[in-house]
């Protein structure tokens, strides 16, 4: 006979299993009969009293208002974001973004991993800018460990992150159009992306989660396939970009859907912590590559591009300008690339001295940064990431009230959030 030890339930000893689970999940103690909460007005309400003042505000309906759930399963929420939209007819009166549907605890996983393996965990965060995800921790860990990557490695890093930026921005143009019902630009964006991804898979061995950066360098040197693909791509990339641009930029319907939509002033953008192309579209000339130079960017010639509008159209034009800028940077990087090693001498398991390091880079979505604390062990004691999409999403509820349902998606797409990064 086995002796069974009954472990006391920390939450409640008297409740049966279902009641206990309901309590853990924050649901009411017993199932509500279908008829009681199934009215149009209350569907979507959290089944618990409001926890904060803001929640009370969002979930209190006035006469004629209705809550609509956009997401987490919805064609246009860029992954699994949920927007609780309060509407009066077609007019949005309030928006409450609900996050966390794609949370994988990556920061915690990184704290359990050695410094070398952290770089594999950060890949699936912002899955459209994988190279940037690896770049920031690589720089931070090099600071912690006091190692510098060889010059050729830095050039290859800059090359791949700029390539990554081009395809990320190409896709943004497509997703913006897709959220307004234009089905073609996304395909052009993917054509552009596919060529770059083929190229990056030639150099890194993978097509999406490249796992290319190492502490103190990069995994591989350039190879013939990469360079030949790069050359072919460079020959026609400007034509490709122009092709996708031609479908949208002067399209009268597209302009009427984007100009004046979701206008964010520079002051508000700074106050909300918005960064990257979204901030520059509001006229603030802040680019981490210029403001806090890292890698080889001080050696490259480029200007910070800004737009004046601050609306969806300005954010779109900003992306196009940055694609062209990145192509210009790629040209310079290829011209200047030195010979030499691509990996510094680094031990298999890195044990940096106790200390702290912060590294910020300019990702396609804005200021992406990493803060790591070492306690002298083989893995980071604390590892935190600032994801720009997460911060950008703050702007959505500010911009929405008074707009129509259709604009919710169009404006959100213009901020180009990636839920993998938001939820980490």
């Amino acid at each position, binding site marked *: 006979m086995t002796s069974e030890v009954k472990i006391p339930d920390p939450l409640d000893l008297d409740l049966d299993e279902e009641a206990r689970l309901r309590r853990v999940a924050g649901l009411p103690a017993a199932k509500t009969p*279908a008829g009681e909460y*199934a009215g*149009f007005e209350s*569907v979507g309400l959290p089944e618990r009293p409001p926890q904060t003042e803001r929640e009370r505000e969002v979930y209190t309906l006035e006469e004629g208002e*209705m809550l*609509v*759930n956009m997401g987490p399963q*919805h*064609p*246009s929420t860029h992954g699994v974001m949920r927007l609780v939209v309060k*509407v009066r007819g*077609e007019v949005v009166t309030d928006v409450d973004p609900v996050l966390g549907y794609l949370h994988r605890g990556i920061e915690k996983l990184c704290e359990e991993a050695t410094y070398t393996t952290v770089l594999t965990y950060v890949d699936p965060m912002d899955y459209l800018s994988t190279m940037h995800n690896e770049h920031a921790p690589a720089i931070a860990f090099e600071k912690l460990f006091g190692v510098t990557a060889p010059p050729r490695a830095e050039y290859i890093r800059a090359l791949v992150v700029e390539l990554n930026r081009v395809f990320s921005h190409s896709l943004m143009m497509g997703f913006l*159009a*897709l*959220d*307004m*019902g*234009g*089905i*073609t630009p996304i*395909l*052009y964006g993917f*054509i552009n992306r596919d060529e770059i991804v083929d190229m990056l898979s030639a150099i890194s061995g993978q097509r999406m989660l490249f796992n290319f950066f190492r502490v103190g360098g990069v995994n591989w040197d350039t190879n013939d396939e990469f360079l030949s693909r790069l050359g072919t791509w460079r020959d026609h990339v400007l034509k490709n970009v122009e092709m996708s641009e031609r*479908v*949208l930029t002067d*399209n009268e*319907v*597209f302009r*009427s*859907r984007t100009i004046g939509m979701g206008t964010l002033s520079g002051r508000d953008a700074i106050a909300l912590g918005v960064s990257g192309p979204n901030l520059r579209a509001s006229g603030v000339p802040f680019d981490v590559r210029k403001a806090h130079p890292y890698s080889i960017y001080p050696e490259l010639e480029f200007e910070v591009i800004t737009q004046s509008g601050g609306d969806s159209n300005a954010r779109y034009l900003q992306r196009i300008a940055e694609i062209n800028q990145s192509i210009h940077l790629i040209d310079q990087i290829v011209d200047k690339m030195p010979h030499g090693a691509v990996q510094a001498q680094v031990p298999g398991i890195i044990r940096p001295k106790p200390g702290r390091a912060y590294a910020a880079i300019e990702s396609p979505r804005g200021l992406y940064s990493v803060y790591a604390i070492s306690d002298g062990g083989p893995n980071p004691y604390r590892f935190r990431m600032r994801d720009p999409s997460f911060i950008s999403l703050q702007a959505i509820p500010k911009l929405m009230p008074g707009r*129509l*349902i*259709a*604009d*919710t*998606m169009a404006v959100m797409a213009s901020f180009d959030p990636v839920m993998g990064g938001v939820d980490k």
Partner: protein
Amino acid sequence: MNIDLLIGVLRFLLATTLILLLTVPTAFVVIQMELKIIAGAQLRYGPNRIGPWGMFQSTIHGFKVLAKEDHIPDQADRATFTLAPWMVYMAAAMSMLVIPFAPGAIAVDFNIGIVYFFAVLGLSVVGLLVAGWASYNKYSLLGGLRSAAQMVSYEIPLTLSVVGVVVLAGTLNFRELIEWQRVHGWMLIWQPVALVIFYVASLAEINRTPFDMVEADSELVAGPFTEYSGMRFGFFFFAEYVALFIMSGILISLFFGGWLAPWPFPDQLDGFIGTIYGVLWFFIKTYIFIAVAVLLRATLVRVRVDQLMGMAWKVLLPLAMVNLLVTAAAVLVFKL
């Protein structure tokens, strides 16, 4: 019993059956065109596995839809939920009855065919509204309301633009209208403004991009069709493509000479040959306009609800009024 009446009834039954049967291949062909043309615009192949050039892809889709689970949500109003697809589908199929395919190939040669056509086509809005309400889903509800607002608004400029044509030709019968065009030249020359109004309004009337507010997949998932599955969804889907065919057919009948060849000879072919010749030209012209509508879908983004309404009431309606006024004045003054 009156033998003429019997023949009339039999002919009507035969014609309606044929029209109902015709809707299926029509929808298949239009869907196939959409798949292939949009694929071309997007630099990809499109369907190319089932049959030569993938031409049986949409047929297979049709069978797939038949085999799928037919699900009715718990809270849905069952009676109206099941009725709605039929209303939409029958509105499309019934309006096909008066389409003039060729001399001798009109299912019902109605003396008020044009009035009948717009009356019946407008019924589909009832089906969409009912679908939106009965589904017990907020996306459906919003989609249904959008469809009501949009189709009711656009019906007015659509019909007003045709009144100009009717005033000029002096008939409400499609066959006579086309005969008029054979004598006087295509209506396109006489009523260019009406053509523009009609084209824009017809796209809105059948919920095509850039006016597909009703479905608006990125906002309302699938609008009134969100909760539908299996063949009930299939009927909505079919009705949509049949409506595209019908609108293109009516467009060419009203403005592009219907079954007439673009050149004046042979002046008039009689009998079976004439029918075949007419059907040929009717289909060529109709499918050209379907292709244009498909290309529009591949190119444009969707307009917003308020822009859509603004255009109907602020631009198209006044334009249609002025057009009608000028046409009527011209008919009076010049005794056309």
